[in-house]
């Protein structure tokens, strides 16, 4: 029997956990401060009168901090990771004992990550994900080691995962830095274009309103001149600054997060690396990719740009990495070229003819539109009765909202559609933006189909595809389509392994067929 390999996380994990905890506490404190700032400013003047109490408070905070550090060190010292035969075992022998056993065959992804602190001290985080729906929204296991040890462990785990497959080439895991080695490498211009086309209208609106709010607050504080006005200004400025920073980061993230984005396809795996302040390296088995998404924001639709994401367990779990990019925003011909080399299985997604929803869907939409209209009318009349709205707004507001709903329905009709092909389902959704989801039948876990009474009369059906993915990608809407296609859909769903239209065109040597 093979001797198990047993080790612990790198001790710097204590510092990382403490920083995370402190950041969380800092955010709570900032929230409280902003609410109580005028009172606190007043009390600050009386500190010298209560110095012993103030010092005792500070000492108490320090002792609490020390206890937390010692607690984290104890958890670190009693947590062991073992690799024996075909399993990975994580044991924590603290007061709450825990033993977590994972079979190598159930590991779907082994990814590496390095934040700024880890880059400075030479460590890397290994993130493991399993083929499990219950943990689809988070990383199953995180192991922090010296970078060289993390690389070696990754290689070992990959060989355990695919014992019957050819071992991955060493150069694939090492990811040479020369751009020529990658199938896709985003330069500065690509990152800039991606950031620009990723900008969300909502974030832009919040940013503009934050700036306007800040200008207004400053003006008010200057003209009021009183200390209460000043304290109030500080509070509102902090809140507006928070909104501004959040929206600004949402916009700027597109420009920074995917710095040096590069992807390589080798045999049946995709190797994805990117990051400036936080370096990330994903290894994605192609057979674990549940679906491909082609996204366009409004600006991308106008500018003729497309972006591709993959849906699988292991990418898109963490808050910072919600998107699982495969190809950043680029023109259609560039996207087609990159998909053909990275995921030829899905390269047809751009060329396939997607049919819009049948025109009789307008009749079906009458039901929800009518119900919404009645509710809006009743709400307006209630607000008029309570004398909150004038008679004019009582009529104008519902009409405006109805107009808005109609506009959304038109946008939805022009954007949405679906295609049921021999091996794939394509679902197109969106209003201003556009999202195309392409899923192979054999990856669909189950299908949910819905009809309202009018849809039943008009032989229309809409549905939802359920995939093995995190919460944001588990369910994909199928817009209305003709009920006559249900039998075909059902047949392909149940017999997806027969007549499979694609085979892996990348042979074992990593050459394209």
């Amino acid at each position: 029997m093979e001797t198990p390999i047993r080790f612990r996380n790198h001790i710097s994990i204590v510092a990382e956990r403490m920083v995370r905890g402190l950041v969380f506490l800092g955010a709570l404190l900032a929230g409280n401060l902003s609410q109580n700032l005028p009172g606190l400013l007043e009390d600050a003047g009386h500190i010298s009168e209560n110095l012993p109490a103030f010092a005792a408070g500070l000492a108490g905070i320090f002792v609490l901090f020390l206890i937390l550090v010692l607690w984290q060190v104890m958890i670190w010292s009693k947590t062991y990771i073992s690799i024996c035969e075909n399993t990975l075992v994580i044991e924590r022998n603290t007061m709450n004992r825990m033993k977590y056993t994972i079979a190598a065959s159930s590991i779907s992804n082994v990814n590496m990550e390095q934040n700024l602190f880890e880059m400075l001290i030479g460590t890397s985080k290994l993130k493991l994900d399993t083929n499990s729906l219950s943990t689809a929204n988070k990383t199953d296991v995180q192991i922090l080691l010296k970078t060289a040890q993390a690389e070696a462990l990754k290689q070992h785990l990959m060989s355990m995962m695919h014992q019957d497959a050819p071992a991955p080439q060493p150069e694939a895991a090492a990811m040479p830095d020369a751009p020529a080695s990658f199938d896709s490498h985003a330069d500065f211009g690509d990152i800039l274009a991606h950031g620009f086309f990723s900008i969300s209208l909502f974030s832009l609106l919040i940013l503009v309103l934050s700036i306007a709010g800040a200008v207004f607050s400053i003006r008010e504080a200057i003209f009021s001149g009183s200390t209460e006005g000043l304290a109030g200004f500080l509070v509102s400025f902090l809140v507006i600054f928070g909104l501004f920073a959040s929206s600004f980061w949402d916009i700027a993230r597109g420009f920074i997060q995917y710095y040096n984005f590069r992807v390589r396809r080798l045999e049946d795996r995709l190797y994805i690396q990117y990051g400036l302040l936080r370096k990330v390296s994903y290894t994605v088995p192609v057979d674990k990719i549940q679906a491909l998404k082609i996204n366009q924001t409004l600006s991308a639709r106008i500018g003729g740009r497309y972006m591709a994401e993959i849906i699988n367990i292991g990418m898109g779990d963490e808050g910072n990495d919600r998107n699982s990019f495969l190809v950043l925003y680029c023109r259609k011909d560039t996207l087609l070229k990159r998909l053909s080399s990275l995921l030829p299985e899905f390269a047809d997604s751009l060329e396939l003819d997607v049919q819009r929803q049948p025109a009789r869907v307008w009749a079906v939409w009458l039901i929800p539109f009518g119900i919404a209209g009645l509710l809006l009318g009743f709400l307006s009349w209630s607000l008029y009765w309570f004398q909150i709205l004038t008679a004019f707004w009582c009529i104008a507001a519902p009409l405006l909202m109805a107009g808005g709903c109609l506009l959304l329905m038109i946008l939805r009709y022009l954007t949405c559609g679906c295609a049921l092909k021999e091996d794939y389902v394509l679902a197109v959704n969106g209003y201003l933006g556009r999202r195309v989801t392409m899923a192979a039948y054999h990856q669909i876990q189950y299908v949910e189909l819905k009809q309202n009474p009018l849809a039943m009369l008009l032989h229309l059906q809409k549905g939802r595809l359920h995939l093995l993915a995190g919460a944001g990608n588990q369910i994909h809407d199928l817009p209305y389509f003709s009920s006559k296609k249900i039998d075909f859909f059902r047949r392909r769903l149940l017999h997806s392994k027969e007549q499979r239209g694609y085979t892996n065109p990348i042979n074992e040597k990593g050459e394209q067929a």
Partner: protein
Amino acid sequence: MKYENLSVQALKCMYVSTALSSLLALAVLGAVNYFYLIPEDIVPGKLASLILAVLICLNLLFSPWFRYHRYRYSINQECIDIREGYLFTRRDIVPIERLHKLQTAKGPLDQIFGVAKVIVTTAGGDVTIRFLEEKQAEEIADSLRRRINQIVTEQRNDYGNTN
């Protein structure tokens, strides 16, 4: 595909569960009216409550009957196909080879009327076959378990032959 109907016990169970939820909703509505809307004479509130009360009563009278007659399920070697609903119908198609887990469950009302539900779990979520007779639920769960084992064995044999 041959679709199965539900037993009469299911209809009784549906009526009782709808009646209980309707009574609860009417009680909450009544309390809001008694303590707030009527004393304050809020006309829109009273009108909304009246409309809601009528809808709840109509739902209680008609929805269990329609749901019972619309409910169909079919289980064969390939898939589970369930059709249910009242005004808005829903159909779930679950390939058998996607099933990971099987569970039978009985709530308090289910136990009174001798019905049970079979919950099948895939990697994409759960699907439930409701209001089955207890014996039938056990038979369905057993046959699904046998079929899942058969699929796993076939997959292992295919994998062994490939290698």
